[in-house]
């Protein structure tokens, strides 16, 4: 068993040296990682770029000591960390104390919500959850909360219920919860996904400050663009193999061709209309938003922009009929279909085919569309796969397929680019175009400015609103 109870800020030139000859999940037929070599120096920023399914999250869990699972996964390789050497020889490997390991290497998972304990009432308590378990004195915890919340602009969230945060806020809180433990190396899986501009700037600045203090950063991302000019080592991960890359190549690679935007007919029908609408979550005391006026016409793609927690998801849920306005009028004159922000919330069947077919009449026309939709989104090969076994990008497309199979005239997309790789983004773009061409409309929320500018006809900016009070749990 490896027990590392002390922090490893040793001043060595290399904090961590990871060499993985091969890694294979239990029961898998192919290796997920091969020939991986990474050296992490104190204060460095290593960015590993890869498409969905390339092995980024697996590599992140190997860094964090979560993988390989003893007696299950096969791994050949060594890790040198804080003067200790861990050898993996096939199924035989030393047992790692994950809590001790986390003092050196902390991992922010791609689904940031999984990092939160969900057993604390307030964000402030969630932030210091690890410190509480370490026995850090209360005064010191208070000092660290004050410092970190000021730095990340979290003051307004400290008293909120962690279970009732928006997706972006959740990621920010998870990142802060990881940073407050001050590990020597932070491995961040898509740290900027779903964050608004302000939060992105705060996180970027925090990373710079932590690096200046000697913390090494390993970022796993589908694009290197946000890290251009700051990165010390840039690698690409493809099919589980790591290779060096120049930042110029990757920035070039991430640029998309703008699509041809069609003009919206002036007399086009209004498919969705919010008139002075007020929306309140069940059990909440204050409205999430008030006085919303918005029209979406046939052939139009409209973007919703605004800070994390400004009510974008709430607007989409109201349009989908999941939430009724408490004041004002909401007119929906066409069928709607909604892609939720978190794909896992939308998937609950055993196979992709069953998932997409769920709820459809057995002899209806929509049922016969299932193969066509799977083909449109490139999912034919995954028809008999369990949705949870798929890479995040493919899982997102499966969730989109469950919406498209019903041919909604108004498509509602909540952060659709989150977790999508470039192939997935291209599919999404095609889907949006096809909906607009057949006279439908699209209402979407995203923090991806490039995607927003490329896709939407116009953008509705959500007004600043007071933080809604969470209902009693």
């Amino acid at each position, binding site marked *: 068993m490896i027990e590392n109870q002390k922090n490893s800020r040793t001043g060595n030139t290399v904090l961590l040296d990871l060499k993985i000859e091969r890694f294979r999940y239990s029961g898998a037929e192919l290796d997920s990682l091969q020939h991986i070599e990474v050296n992490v120096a104190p204060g460095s920023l290593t960015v590993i770029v890869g498409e969905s399914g390339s092995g980024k999250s697996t590599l992140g*869990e190997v860094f*964090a000591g*979560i993988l390989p699972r003893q007696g299950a996964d096969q791994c050949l390789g060594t890790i040198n960390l804080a003067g200790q050497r861990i050898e993996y020889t096939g199924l035989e490997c030393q047992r790692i104390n*994950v*809590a001790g*390991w*986390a003092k050196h290497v*902390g*991992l922010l*998972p791609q*689904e940031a919500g*999984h*990092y939160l*304990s*969900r*057993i*604390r*009432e307030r964000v*402030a*308590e969630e932030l*210091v*959850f*690890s*410190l*509480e*378990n*370490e*026995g*850090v*004195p*209360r005064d010191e*915890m*208070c000092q660290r*909360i004050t410092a970190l919340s000021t730095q990340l602009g979290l003051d307004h969230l400290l008293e909120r219920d962690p*279970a009732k945060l928006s997706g972006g806020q959740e990621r920010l809180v998870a990142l802060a*919860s990881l940073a407050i*433990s001050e590990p020597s190396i932070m491995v961040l899986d898509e740290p900027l996904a779903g964050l608004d501009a302000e939060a992105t700037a705060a996180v970027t600045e925090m990373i710079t400050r932590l690096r200046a203090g000697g913390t090494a950063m390993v970022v796993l991302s589908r694009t290197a663009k946000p890290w251009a000019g700051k990165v010390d080592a840039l690698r690409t991960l493809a099919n589980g193999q790591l290779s060096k890359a120049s930042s110029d190549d990757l920035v070039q690679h991430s640029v998309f061709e703008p699509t041809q935007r069609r003009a919206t007919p002036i007399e086009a029908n209004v498919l969705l209309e919010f008139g002075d609408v007020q929306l309140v979550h069940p059990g909440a005391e204050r409205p999430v938003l008030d006085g919303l006026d918005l029209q979406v016409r046939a052939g139009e793609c409209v973007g919703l922009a605004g800070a994390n927690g400004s009510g974008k998801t709430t607007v989409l*849920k109201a349009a*989908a*009929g*999941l939430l009724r306005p408490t004041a004002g009028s909401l007119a929906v004159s066409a069928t709607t*279909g*909604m892609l*939720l922000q978190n794909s*896992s*919330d*939308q*998937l*609950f*069947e055993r196979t992709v085919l069953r998932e997409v077919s*769920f*709820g459809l009449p057995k002899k209806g026309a929509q049922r016969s569309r299932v193969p066509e939709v799977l083909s449109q989104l490139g999912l034919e090969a995954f028809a008999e796969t369990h949705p*949870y076994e798929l890479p995040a990008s493919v899982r997102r497309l499966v969730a989109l397929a*469950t*919406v498209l199979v*019903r041919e909604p005239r108004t498509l509602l997309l909540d952060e659709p680019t989150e977790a999508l790789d470039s192939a997935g983004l291209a599919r999404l773009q095609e889907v949006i175009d096809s909906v607009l061409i057949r006279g439908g409309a699209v209402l979407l929320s995203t923090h991806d400015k490039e995607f927003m500018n490329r896709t939407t006809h116009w953008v509705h900016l959500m007004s600043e609103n007071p933080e809604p009070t969470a209902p009693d*749990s």
Partner: protein
Amino acid sequence: MPKSINLHPFTVLALTAAVVTMTTAAGLWWLSCAVITVCVLVAGWTGHLRRLAVLSAAILIPTFASLLLIHGLVSQQASGLIAVAGPFRVTEGGLEAATVLGLRTAVLVVAGLLCTLLISKHQLVAAIDLSPAPPQVGYLLAATLFLLPHMADKQRTIGQAQALRQAGTGRGLSGWFQRVRLRAVPLVLASLQDAHDRSSHLSARGFPAAGSHTRLRTVADSVTQQRVRWISLLCAVVGPTAILAPFWGSA
């Protein structure tokens, strides 16, 4: 909006234990009624009256009904006959026995429910974490107390996802059964997956704590409350013995 009371959770628990054990041991109808009245007043003052009434009724109505069936309608007592029809015999003694037993149960139910409504589960977990109890106790309690709210959130999310696909949107009793059927399996699978996804990160965050641990949350306490707790615990243990001892051997 319910009022929060500034009592240590252990104080509320100890008081409840003392009241329930002593009232049950005494077995006096007027004492049971007095305790229930005090509970109702406390619930009204703290803003929990409606929830206490609904929850208590859900448990006590079937309880009283079954006690009446057992003791009130088929009483074996010979004296105090009120009515008889075939196998049914209603006697004064039978009705009294049903009432006394029902009131004893009512004290346990009403006081117990009030106790759960007054104590914040987060405060209770914090109180255990801050006590000398082993860390595993706080972990077990947290895992138990927060499981149901998590599953409730999860089933709401599954319900929304299914509603988006026009499934499980029926009304009435059949609609309710359809929703239960559609959500049950996904709920269990999603909960297992969620537990699996979170477990490694909880371990990485040192949960459950292996050694000494601290809490950011403070739990108000005082010497007076500590004394009240000790006296209450003493009453809970010694009180029933003292009440019942004179009757031992006389039955």
